[in-house]
């Protein structure tokens, strides 16, 4: 298995990791820095850790300050996600990812979203602007 999908670099980097899908927008301020667990009530990832994952999510939210503070605290505690794949980037999310040097891409070809599942292993390579599907989640 080695499917590849085109994408666009927003914040540079090459990372490999497990996919974590979110239907809801994410504010990293609402994650516990000690564990990376999303704490926002009613969020589809409530109780789930973003630590070491490649997050596939619609976009960010929140005020002009707290997104970066949330990311920074996760980074400091080693509980940050490895990479971000976003559908609709906003200025706050984009500047936070660039400053925190957290690899982020958008404009991923649509078939990626049809294919990808929680737990799949993927590789983001912003230099070549591609995402590779490395391995399907095992228990399927």
């Amino acid at each position, binding site marked *: 298995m080695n499917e590849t999908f085109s994408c666009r670099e*927003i*914040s540079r980097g090459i990372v490999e990791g497990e996919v974590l899908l979110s239907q809801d927008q994410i504010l990293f*301020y*609402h994650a516990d820095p000690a564990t990376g667990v999303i704490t926002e009530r009613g969020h589809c990832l409530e109780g789930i850790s973003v630590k070491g994952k490649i997050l596939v999510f619609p976009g960010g*939210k929140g*005020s*002009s*300050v*707290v*997104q*970066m*503070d949330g*990311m*920074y*605290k996760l980074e*400091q505690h080693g509980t940050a996600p490895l990479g971000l794949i976003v559908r609709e*980037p*906003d*200025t*706050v999310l*984009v*500047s*936070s990812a*660039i*400053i925190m040097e957290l690899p982020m891409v*958008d404009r991923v070809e649509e078939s990626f979203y049809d294919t990808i599942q929680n737990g799949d292993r993927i590789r983001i390579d912003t230099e070549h602007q591609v995402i590779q599907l490395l391995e399907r989640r095992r228990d399927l």
Partner: protein
Amino acid sequence: MELTAYQQELLDGVWGKGKSMAMQILVGIGKCFDAPRLVPITRAHVSLSAQEADLWFSGKLLAAGASCAVPPTVNPGYSLDYFGGQISEAAVENMRQVDQTYRQLGARMTYSCTPYLGDNVPDCGEIVAFSETNATIFVNSVLGARTNRESAASALCAAVTGFTPEYGMLLEENRFATVAVEVQATLRSDFDYAVLGLMGKKIGKGVPAFLGLPREISTEALIALGTQLNVSGSFDLFHIPGVTAEVRDMQDAFGGRDPQRRVVITDEDLEKALETFSPSPSGPIEYCILGCPHYTLSQLEEVAELLAQKASQVPIYILTSSTVKARARECGLEQRLLDLGAQLIPDTCVDEACCWGYLAGRPGVTDSPKGAYYMETSGIQLAVRDRATCIRWAQNGSVC
């Protein structure tokens, strides 16, 4: 992206590492949003927060030798004069460092989230970089200035370099209304406009034009509307034909096009929105917190009026700017409020856990949905009601 010779020099580090860092971030943002170029800004407002990442990033720029080409005004952190004796040494030291860092970067230490009321007021059409969602939407909508919804960091980078990428709200074609919001509800106080701002989900994405509103709307009501729209959703700009700067009528607002969506807001919608956001509480109230965003002088006068018959039984904390506090002091209003149980706290934001953490688990009331939303992160549960109700509960020491 096309850069001018000077912009390329900034990027290449000819003018120092700090400017180059800021430029790299702006170019990254510009590329993401397909900006063809960077354009000069005349003003900036940075949502300083005194949080960890804020000090880390501003410190990093300073250490790299950055200074501001356009001195920005800044958001509140927390007042050491007021909180100095009751917060940890570390928190005192943190705020000192934030103050020093921004000062050395060349910022104007205004510590207010309503800079557009006096400290930093853009004209219609002026290109600026304002962070702080309530300030961004106010200067875009009410004043007709042009800014994207900057993050604290991107606004600081714009201040350091004097440039911002040209995209989004800077472009004429993105500033037309797309959603017609017909307001059938009756709006009486600025709080009613705050509740209207909670309808962000129903309004949906886009630039709303509010129709059916009175021609005379107070500045405070316009502040409340924009602020709370960014609690219930993400909005850069709204129009009210005949009221806000850029639009006289429907034609101006929609640029001759049909609205993509029509939404009707009734009294019932507003009642439901408030009840959902803050269900009716019962029992004792231990404090009242007002001033998110910072209260204006006339809001302070209204509080004094409401308290005139009977002083508050519980502390009323009112957040405001140093400028407004000084004016209230000069005219005797601050003393009058103090005598009635209301303290003015300058330079401070509700979202500072080190100052307000002690209120966690204790019932209080506020007139700001935004204040309640952000204080909840520190475990503080606030009921949200209009100013008159807040004061009545405070006078009574309980919900009544």
